[in-house]
């Protein structure tokens, strides 16, 4: 299980690296029409990660908790994502994961099989959620890379 936890813990560094060298105009522009700005992606990842950390905590601490889905488009439309700070969002994302990782490394292997009931996805375990969170960052990093290329500021590896 250690490697998935390590991947999870390094998500903040990956996210920080992915927006390096972008200014406010870059972050808030829409290089791929009809899709989110990089700013919106970063704020979405901050919001989504905070929710999932709380969900995993409930799966560990409670008995098959019910976890309500949320509408990410409603969040992006109504929560003033352009007024928030992308840099602070990345710091929070990183700090939240590093803090939760301290608990993750203490859990017994069986804890990874503890489950919750998601109102839309159904049953999901802590281990599945961790994998989902690692993939979630990679999924969005792909789009950030594409948008950066369109902005003429391709991501250096």
């Amino acid at each position, binding site marked *: 299980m250690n490697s998935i936890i390590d991947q999870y813990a390094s998500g903040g560094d990956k996210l920080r690296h992915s927006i390096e060298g972008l200014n406010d105009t870059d972050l808030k522009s829409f290089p791929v029409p009809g899709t989110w700005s990089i700013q919106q992606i970063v704020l979405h990842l901050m919001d989504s990660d*905070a929710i999932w950390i709380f969900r995993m905590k409930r799966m560990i601490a409670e008995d098959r908790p019910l976890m309500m889905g949320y509408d990410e488009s409603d969040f992006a439309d109504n929560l003033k994502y352009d007024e928030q700070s992308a840099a602070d969002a990345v710091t929070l994302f990183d700090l939240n994961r590093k803090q939760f990782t301290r608990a993750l490394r203490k859990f017994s292997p069986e804890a990874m099989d503890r489950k919750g009931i998601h109102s839309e996805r159904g049953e999901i375990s802590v281990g599945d959620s961790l994998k989902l969170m690692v993939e979630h960052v990679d999924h969005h990093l792909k789009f950030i890379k594409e948008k950066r290329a369109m902005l003429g500021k391709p991501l250096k590896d």
Partner: protein
Amino acid sequence: MNSSIDQYERGGERLRSAIAGLSREEMIWRPPADAGVGLWSVQQIVIHVMDSDLVGIDRMKRTIAENNPLLIGYNETLFSQSLYYDDQSADDAINILELTRRQFAKVLRKLPKETYERTAVHSERGMVTLGQELHGYNWHLDHHLDFINKKRAKLGNTKA
């Protein structure tokens, strides 16, 4: 509402100042029941308010963005028993609380007055408005800061 948002945003620095000068031993000291200052250690309180804020901000965001969302209560006692509160970092907990509140205060300040009347349904408390949630989280931190002060008095290490 502006003064409530100001108070909310200052929560991180108030929490930091509340625990300033406490040693690790003092942080994890569990008061005996007859001390009358609550059963949690200061460390547990700090991680608890971080967790409470994590869900609190999610609840307020849902109240703003969704239509009368259902907010599910959680068991804070089970959290404090199962989530290795002593192994987490109190400093990071305060940094997280401070930065999350500062970030969310930017949103709160942009909302029109009527948004504070938007409602959600809490699985245990019933209907709540955004304004009530914000007041509730201000009250919640004050409540715990009060207990931290009482524990410090018992420890003989009162705030400078």
